[in-house]
């Protein structure tokens, strides 16, 4: 049974539609990407998954069951707006949060110590949160989301405000949790993280689902319109080939935008006639491009 199934949910705030007919499922050991511009309905969706607000229509099921206090305890949440009690010790508040999600004091304490050790910040056990650096506060925040070993984890902008080293640390932690079978919903603006972590995604735009499905298929659906070419010498006359939109000269060679995929073959032939080709690739579109194309076009 799928840990999280969302079926045709709608949410209206007065006149404004926040979420309209959204459906997706997340399997065990899967990170599901929820993408969208600001105000697209991501936070509302997450709040509905967390049971903070109820959908007007549609259904959310957790291991086949509707929302209840049991579900509350199996979920972990890393909110976009980070926040802990600034004046309290790390141990006090994290044990409290663990207890609120049904752990005993001792269990929560053990789990907290394990996580601090993992992030190599054991010495912060007795420190106040306000005394920690921003990066370390983020780590504590992450521990707050996972201290009770949730089955469903909601990550809203999980890696924002972290330096590259800490991003890698958290990313590898997230992957590990995924491999242990945790089900995650992941929202971010950073497309490269989605490409690295998510199998399936939904792109929301102004409350509507504009793209939905497996990342690989979505990419396949979008035409490959970019050719990367590197040659030993100069290649003349690329711009004048039929079907070529633009040519960009880079350090390594050329980046050519084309109208149709078969134009790529013409480019290769044209280039080989002039100089030895070191590299030729028909690039698949990046998620970033897809996102800008779908969301950006609609916004024009």
């Amino acid at each position, binding site marked *: 049974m799928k840990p999280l199934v969302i079926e045709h949910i709608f949410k209206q705030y007065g006149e404004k539609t926040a979420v309209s007919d959204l459906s997706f499922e997340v399997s065990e050991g899967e990170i599901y990407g929820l993408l969208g511009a600001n105000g697209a309905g991501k936070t509302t969706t997450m709040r509905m998954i*967390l049971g903070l607000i109820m959908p007007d229509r549609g259904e959310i099921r957790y291991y086949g069951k509707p929302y209840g206090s049991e579900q509350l305890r199996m979920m972990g949440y890393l909110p976009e707006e*980070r926040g802990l009690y*600034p004046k309290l010790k790390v141990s006090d508040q994290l044990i*409290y949060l663990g207890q*609120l999600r049904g752990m005993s004091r001792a269990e929560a304490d053990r789990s907290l110590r394990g996580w601090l050790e993992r992030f190599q910040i054991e010495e912060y056990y007795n420190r106040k949160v306000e005394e920690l650096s921003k990066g370390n506060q983020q780590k504590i925040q992450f521990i707050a989301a996972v201290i009770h070993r949730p089955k469903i984890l909601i990550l809203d902008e999980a890696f924002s405000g972290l330096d590259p080293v800490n991003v890698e640390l958290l990313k590898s932690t997230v992957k590990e949790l995924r491999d242990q079978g945790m089900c995650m919903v992941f929202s971010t603006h950073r497309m490269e993280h989605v490409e690295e972590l998510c199998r399936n995604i939904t792109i929301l735009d102004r409350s509507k689902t504009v793209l939905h499905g497996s990342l690989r298929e979505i990419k396949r659906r979008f035409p490959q319109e970019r050719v990367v070419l590197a040659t030993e010498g100069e290649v003349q006359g690329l711009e004048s080939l039929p079907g070529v939109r633009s040519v960009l000269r880079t350090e390594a060679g050329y980046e050519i935008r084309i109208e149709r995929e078969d134009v790529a073959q013409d480019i290769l032939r044209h280039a080989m006639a002039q100089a030895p080709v070191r590299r030729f690739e028909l690039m698949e579109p990046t998620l970033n491009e897809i996102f800008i194309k779908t969301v950006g076009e609609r916004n024009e």
Partner: protein
Amino acid sequence: MNSLWIVTAFTLRNKLRSKAFIWSTAILAVLLVVGANLPYFLERLNLGGSDEPKPVGYIEGAYPEVVQGLEAFYARQENPDIRLVAIPSGGSPQADEAALRQAVEDKTIKGYILFADRPEIGFPEVIYHSSSLMDFTVAETLRIALESVKAEMVFRNVQLSDAERALLAAPVAVHTLLIDTGEEGGKTAAEQGVAIGLTYAIIILLFMAVTITGQLVATEITAEKSSRVMELLITSVKPLRQMFGKILGTFTAGVIQIGLLVGVFVANLMLPHNRGALEALGIRLDAVEPKLLIFALFFYLTGYFLYATLFAAIGSIVSRTEELGQALSPVMILSIVGFYIAIFGLRNPESPIVVIGSYIPFFTPFLMFERIGLSDPPVWEIALSIGILLASILLFGWLAAKIYRTGVLMYGKRPSIKELVKAMKAYKV
């Protein structure tokens, strides 16, 4: 463990360990120790000071009959309030007054009396000039003495027995007894004094406890919201439990604080040296009715919960601590109005405004308590007002929970009531 108790315990633990709590308790305890011992020290100071008769000047030769009568009256008293001092006349009324004023400045006298002729009665009008404003007791004994002098002057030529003369001279004593329809006897003056003092003290205590702890609840909720830890909390525990856990935890901290302070105060009052001082002031602790204390505790409890739910609801809709004060002001004004009606009602506990107010749940804790302490309202009136109070606690608790549920999710500008209602509908709380 139930999450309600986890929240309660967490709130209580943080409160008890906070520096603000420890310091405020310590400072208040010191103030109370000083306050409890104050009567004793005042009495010690009094022994050498104002128990001596107060020197009051008069112009030599003016109304000798009256002055002699006064002197005779004070001579008969064991502890006379006044000692008459003769000041030589300056010749004219202006010079007389100047001489008396000079004597006051020289501190040979503390006040003086002047006579004004009233030929139609045959007894002069007496004007007492006092160096201090609040000199009512001296004026009062002066009046009693003058009445006695006048009576003696009238009856001088009448044959009276010694017993009759003593009767004439004895001041009339009026003791007020509070009518109590339920029990026999009624409250004596001492009991009444204690009742007024105690009621006054408890009303102040109630007001402070309710508003201070109530505001603490609101402040903490807003702080949780502004630090955004709220988002984690509401996804970990049901908002209703969280709100009531917070209210209960803060309440327990408040009870512990008040218990400590009252304990310190009463323990100091019970010290042997203080007991005498209190009795000298006419305060007897055993005159305190246990019924009154039970009602005080009850109204503290109910008043706190009524106000705390309101404070919690307001705390939940404010996103930033700086905006909280303004948002709380309607509730603060409500509590202050109740408090001031209670202070006004101390002298007149059965006035319509107090009686009507005692049925308004926000005022009941102050006003019904006052009526119970100072007058004797029928049982059904007490029951009715308590019923209304309990019903409104349920109502406002329910409403506050709904507002809280919605408010904690709303960030940014403080929502208007209309926006709040709209959001409540949208969130389906």
